[in-house]
């Protein structure tokens, strides 16, 4: 309070001299503190964003090589190879069956030994004969000539090509690449195959299909129920104890840890209702209970944003309360509801813990055919692979994470697009 007349003793205090050294120093300190505070704030954001960047870069660094595999050129002399096959039978529909019994694994490993040296068959993958099978199926005429096929390399060789492996594998890789029989190719199998025990053979198609079925069940249940509940609570519900209870339980359900929903699924859907274990149906039911509150809350906000004048106008020209809501309010609120639904579904797609509870962690080597078949989903597959000891699984886990993140990014982009395109300011 400098500079103010203090009346008691009559002494007049001088106005603050802002030019004085002391005041200048004080201002400098305060401004420095201001700059520091601002820098700390910026630092916090940069640190958070940096962590995100670090996470993404490390996943890309580990995972991109998972989409690539090492292939070895092996020459096959089909006419002299001991293949038990009759080219004529290949024309029918049962070519797979015929070729499975055609002694191809032995032929393949024999050819690998001949082409790559004594230990040659240990550098091609254990499933390399499948490539040979597909080649024959595509073009049976190669059975009558010599043909060079690129076979997938073994897990060790693949690791050697990508950096870290045993000295033996490194040496073999050096020798083979000197001989010019090695190339890197896009690993199509990773997108079309299912789980396997050998990291060079695994794929995510089975898990993706399981995720798709689970999400369909979740959407089919949580969307209608969530929208109807939101409409009731926002438009019709009388203010009484029941409505309060419904609101309280919806808000609580939105905050209940996801693993509790897993326990619910285990106790009710599996142990009381005896639905099939590990099935997308049960996973979808459990996730639907989890997603529904999210949709209800987003839906209520979207419905609340529709201006009352629209309802009044519709009521004024004689619409019934139900017609007001279904003909006018709901269509106007739908973009907002869709945005909330997509965000809720994206969260459900990344959810792991409740699905572990209901047994979706089994080893499933073939894609599910329906919603009652045992299945696994993408995040659970990531969890299962992360537990594997074999080093080859590291890049596969990260590659699967990349796929999952791409899906989530896509869903969230759609949500943001919808929000920006259809959002109305009334």
């Amino acid at each position, binding site marked *: 309070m400098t500079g103010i007349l203090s009346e008691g003793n009559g002494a007049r205090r001088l106005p603050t001299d802002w030019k004085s050294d002391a005041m200048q120093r004080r201002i400098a300190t305060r401004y420095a503190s201001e700059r520091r505070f601002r820098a700390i704030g910026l630092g*916090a954001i940069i640190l958070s964003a940096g962590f995100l960047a670090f996470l993404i870069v490390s996943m890309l660094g580990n995972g991109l090589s998972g989409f690539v595999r090492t292939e070895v050129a092996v020459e096959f002399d089909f006419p002299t190879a001991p293949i038990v096959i009759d080219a004529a039978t290949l024309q029918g529909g049962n070519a797979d069956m015929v070729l499975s019994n055609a002694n191809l694994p032995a032929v393949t490993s024999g050819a690998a030994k001949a082409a790559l040296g004594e230990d040659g068959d240990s550098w091609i993958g254990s499933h390399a004969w499948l490539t040979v099978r597909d080649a024959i199926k595509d073009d049976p005429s190669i059975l009558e000539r010599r043909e060079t096929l690129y076979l997938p390399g073994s897990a060790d060789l693949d690791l050697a090509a990508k950096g870290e492996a045993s000295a033996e594998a490194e040496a073999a890789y050096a020798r083979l690449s000197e001989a010019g029989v090695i190339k890197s190719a896009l690993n199509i199998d990773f997108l079309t195959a299912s789980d396997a025990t050998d990291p060079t053979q695994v794929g995510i198609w089975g898990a993706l299909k399981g995720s798709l079925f689970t999400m369909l069940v979740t959407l089919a249940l949580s969307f209608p129920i969530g929208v109807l509940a939101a409409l009731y609570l926002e438009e019709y519900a009388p203010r009484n104890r029941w409505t309060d209870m419904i609101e309280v339980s919806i808000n609580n359900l939105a905050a209940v840890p996801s693993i509790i929903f897993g*326990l619910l699924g285990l106790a009710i859907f599996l142990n009381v209702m005896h639905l099939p274990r590990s099935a997308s149906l049960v996973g979808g039911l459990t996730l639907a209970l989890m997603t529904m509150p999210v949709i209800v809350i987003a839906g209520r906000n979207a419905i609340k944003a529709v201006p009352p004048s629209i309802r009044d106008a519709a009521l004024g020209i004689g619409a019934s309360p139900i017609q007001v809501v279904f003909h006018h309010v709901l269509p106007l609120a739908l973009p907002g509801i869709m945005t909330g639904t997509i965000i809720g579904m994206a*969260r459900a797609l990344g959810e792991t813990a409740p699905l572990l509870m209901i047994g979706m962690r089994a080893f499933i080597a073939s894609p599910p055919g329906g919603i009652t078949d045992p299945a696994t989903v993408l995040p659970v597959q990531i969890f299962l692979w992360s537990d594997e000891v074999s080093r080859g699984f590291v890049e596969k886990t990260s590659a699967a994470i990349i796929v999952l993140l791409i899906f989530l990014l896509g869903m969230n982009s759609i949500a943001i697009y919808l929000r920006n395109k259809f959002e109305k300011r009334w």
Partner: protein
Amino acid sequence: MSGIAIVTMILGLGVIAWLSARAKASRLAAVPGKDKLQRSRALHSLPSYHGWYVALWVLLPALIFLALWSNIMPGLVTERVMNDPAAQILPQDSFTRGAILGEARNLARGATSVAFDQRSRTLVEPYRAAERFYSLGGAVVALLLAFAGGAFAFMRVKTDFRARTRVERIVMMSLLLASLIAIVTTVGIVASLLWESLRFFSLVNPIDFLFGTKWSPQSAAMGYGNDDAFGAIPLFWGTIFIGAIIAMAVAIPLGLMSAIYLTQYAKPAARAWLKPILEVLAGVPTVVYGYFAALTIAPSMRDFAAWVGIPGASSESALAAGLVMGVMIIPFVSSMADDSINSVPQSMRDGSLAIGATTSETIKQVLIPAALPGVVGGVLLAVSRAIGETMIVVMAAGLAANMTLNPFASVTTVTTQIVQLLTGDQEFDSAKTLAAFALGLVLFIVTLLLNIVALHVVKRYREVYE
């Protein structure tokens, strides 16, 4: 007749009912020689409401009956098979009898082609006959119901019939039912957790569970007795240590400072970019965080501890899980703080700036104190989110139930143990599996309380300024 076929048929009947009832109503309305306005007065409801009314009468009774029938049919089928002369060969022992019946059912439906017990082969034919009899019977009754309902409703389609009111009553009912699902779910959660927990507490003293300090469910499973094996204090400590201490030590300063920078300093253009980036952190699935923590953070923490010379460093450290969890929580804290700072009246901020305070002084001495209840509420919600988080701790924290203050050592959490106890082979009645539900109950109650307190704090604070 298969279930899908009969449901499709009933749906088809519904469509036909809708079309014909609407046509009848339109015909009733079409009084010759009158203009459009008078014609619409002839009907109480629009023709399509008459259509819906009849279609609902066709669909609802038949579909409800089918749903009930599919539940009681297996019992009826089994009873008929048991009364068949071929069932005389069945043993009295109910367990083997059940197994044989189950096998016969699978054979009859073509689900399997091999039978372990040859006696089941003789029951295949009676089974098929019984299933055919009852499913055909059910289909016939369902169709009769559909026709009867349709006919009854169709007769009622008159000019002054209030079809819209009836249809709207059904719509209203379905709206109410949909919103009751939330209550049913809550009741389901509480009931299943309580039921299984009570069974657990009949095996293990609740006092021992809540206040015991030794957690070793494996030894209980191996037959060393339940006493003394289910002391959950180490789990509670691990959960608090990771979720409420380490994670919050990361999330509170970073989240709060981010929110302050975004709301007070950042230009609108920068804010439009930075806020979504923070939100992406919240959208990354927890299994990805868990993998990241286990693969990248945990080994470097262990190496760091070894380099500094801290004893007891483990590759599954509390610090790695807590740090990554803290990063996951940042956007959560940040958006809560954002909201509460934004809802401080602009006049308070302007007043502070007008008497010469710098922006940071305004923030520290005016905005934060005013927004504090909201921030505290947000932090409580964040804690409840963190202690319920599962995948990060399952993948990056350990399984050893230690009570330690050393962040580089391995601790375990409630959620980790729930996953551990319930995955893999299990029989459902052992104390080990039931313990998971007791832990779930504790987790549910604690997160519920945290949420209620947090919302209460936030709400009271809002009332002050609005």
